[in-house]
């Protein structure tokens, strides 16, 4: 476990370093860029203006000094100050991340539910339902979530008026965005669990459970499912990251409050501390999720406990 934690810290450090290195390739003078972006047109800033910004963000220091300060601040949970909002990035993220996390987690749960139900009911049965389920998974896995979201919004909110048109963070307002995010992921997870489920169905221990008189559904739920979920559980860390970034798009579709609007605005305004801050928050989430997956794995497959 200590080894795992060490690995997690390494990945976090490496992701921070990556975001820092990418910034070094930024064309032009950074203080001028900040002034231009804020004004919305090309300015000819005075030397004092530039000097003030350079002093504020430490752009005059050597790259090494800037890097050491960046990593040092990060270790203390300081993500720097937003170029455009002039507030600490951690405060901006903390104020907006709540609804995004609720959306991400609801979508993860929904995606798992959909893919498991389809897997248990449809795998290994040669009938129209089973083929329809497979087709559904291939199609949904290829759909861009923003397009599904727009269809939901147009049909269910604008035309039929079942759901609110303006995004809200209430339970009802979360249903459509969560389904939108969950559907492509469920198609993807479903394909993986179905492959594994079909493989496990042919194993000798399944035949032996059947000969002991356990019903088909019982065999599927009690004996096969536990094995079939493992490959997709491994992907949960990745899935959480994909959902979190997908949530950014979906929040824009449903004009929902959350980190999405902040991130798009920050990217547009080239507010790099804010963009990297959100990226690092997402990377941290990925790392924590992977640690949790390791723990969950031992519960699902007890043979790994001794290892």
């Amino acid at each position, binding site marked *: 476990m200590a080894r795992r934690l060490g690995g997690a810290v390494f*990945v976090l450090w*490496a*992701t921070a370093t*990556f*975001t820092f290195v*990418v*910034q070094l*390739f*930024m*064309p032009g003078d950074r203080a001028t860029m900040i002034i231009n972006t804020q004004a919305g047109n090309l300015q000819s800033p005075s030397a004092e203006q530039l000097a003030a910004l350079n002093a504020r963000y430490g752009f005059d220091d050597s790259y090494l000094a800037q890097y050491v300060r960046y990593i040092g601040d990060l270790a203390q949970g300081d993500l720097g100050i937003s170029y455009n909002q002039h507030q600490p990035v951690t405060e901006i993220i903390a104020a907006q991340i709540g609804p995004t996390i609720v959306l991400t987690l609801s979508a993860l749960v929904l995606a798992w539910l959909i893919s498991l139900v389809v897997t248990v009911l449809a795998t290994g049965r040669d009938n129209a339902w089973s083929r329809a389920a497979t087709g559904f998974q*291939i*199609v949904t*896995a*290829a*759909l*861009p979530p*923003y*397009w599904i979201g*727009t*269809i939901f*919004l*147009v049909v269910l909110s*604008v035309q039929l008026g079942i759901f609110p*048109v303006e995004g809200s963070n209430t339970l009802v307002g979360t249903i459509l965005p969560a389904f939108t995010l969950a559907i492509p992921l469920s198609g*993807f997870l479903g*394909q*993986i669990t179905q*492959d594994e489920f079909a493989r496990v169905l042919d194993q000798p221990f399944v035949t032996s459970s059947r000969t002991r008189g356990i019903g088909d559904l019982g065999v599927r739920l009690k004996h096969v499912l536990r094995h079939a979920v493992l490959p997709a559980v491994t*992907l949960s860390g*990745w899935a959480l*990251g*994909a959902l*979190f*970034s*997908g949530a*950014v*798009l979906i929040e*824009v579709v449903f004009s929902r409050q959350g980190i999405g609007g902040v*991130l*798009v605005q*920050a*990217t*547009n305004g*080239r*507010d*790099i501390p804010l*963009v*990297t801050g*959100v*990226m690092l928050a*997402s*990377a941290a989430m*990925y*790392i924590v999720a992977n640690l949790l997956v390791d723990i969950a794995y031992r519960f699902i497959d007890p043979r790994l406990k001794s290892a």
Partner: protein
Amino acid sequence: MSTIAIDAPGAAGAARIGALLRSLPVGVRIAGAIVALYLLAAVLPGLLQPHDPFATDLDAALQGPSVAHPFGTDQSGRDVLSRVIEGTRQSLAIGVGATALSFVFALALGIAAGLGGKLVDGAINRFLEVLFAFPILFVALLFVAVFGQSVTTQIIAVAIGTAPGYARIIRGQFLTVKGSAYVEAARAVGHSYGKIVRQHVFPNAMRPLVVMFTLGVGQAIVWASGLAFLGLGVAPPSPEWGALLDAGRAYVTSAWWLELTPGLAIVVFALSVTIVGRHVQERLEGKVKVQPL
């Protein structure tokens, strides 16, 4: 399309192509025909356009889909179907460009890891693992923020976002081929390292990449359109699909066709490419394992 990808050896006569077409499942034939139609739209858009994509007609502004305008008209009365067809070339170019650039990065990393020693492989593998901590979209957003908004940035952003996934697959390919029995046999017969790499490892490890590239173009277009949807792509006057999505967003509650029809063009293309690509892949390598990019 599919006949080229399968790469039939020798002179592929008309009879041969006919037999091949008949052997394809109906779904794959339809998907192939759709991809061909898109290619036609990219090369000769005028052949398919019912109207001039730039001709404005304010009397016919914001009309819903009809026989005359299957995709409706926009706020200036321009025919949306004709505009979507006009945008095909640029959208496909962005997809192909981003995938090609992504493959350049991925090949450099994947080949170095696959052929380099344990140290190089370990370092590159670690680097890729770190990149996987970032969702593709966020890597793309970072590049847009650092380099500013433009078509070039959009292509580079999608390329860098998707490259780690391809690099991992390419690395795996090289490692599998390097450890295969025929490479061992070639070594046993005394072939030099260079000859083995040239004659055995490269051709075999690269073969699946043709299909991977085709699938990648569909995915790249979806990613690029996602950036465009957020208003971070090509500037609006152009009828590129992502730009149409971006422009249509303002009308989603009043004129839904402006947002949904360019999206439909993207989805149908991505799906058709996926169906054709997967079929070819299964023919070449058997059952395909699903994995995240």
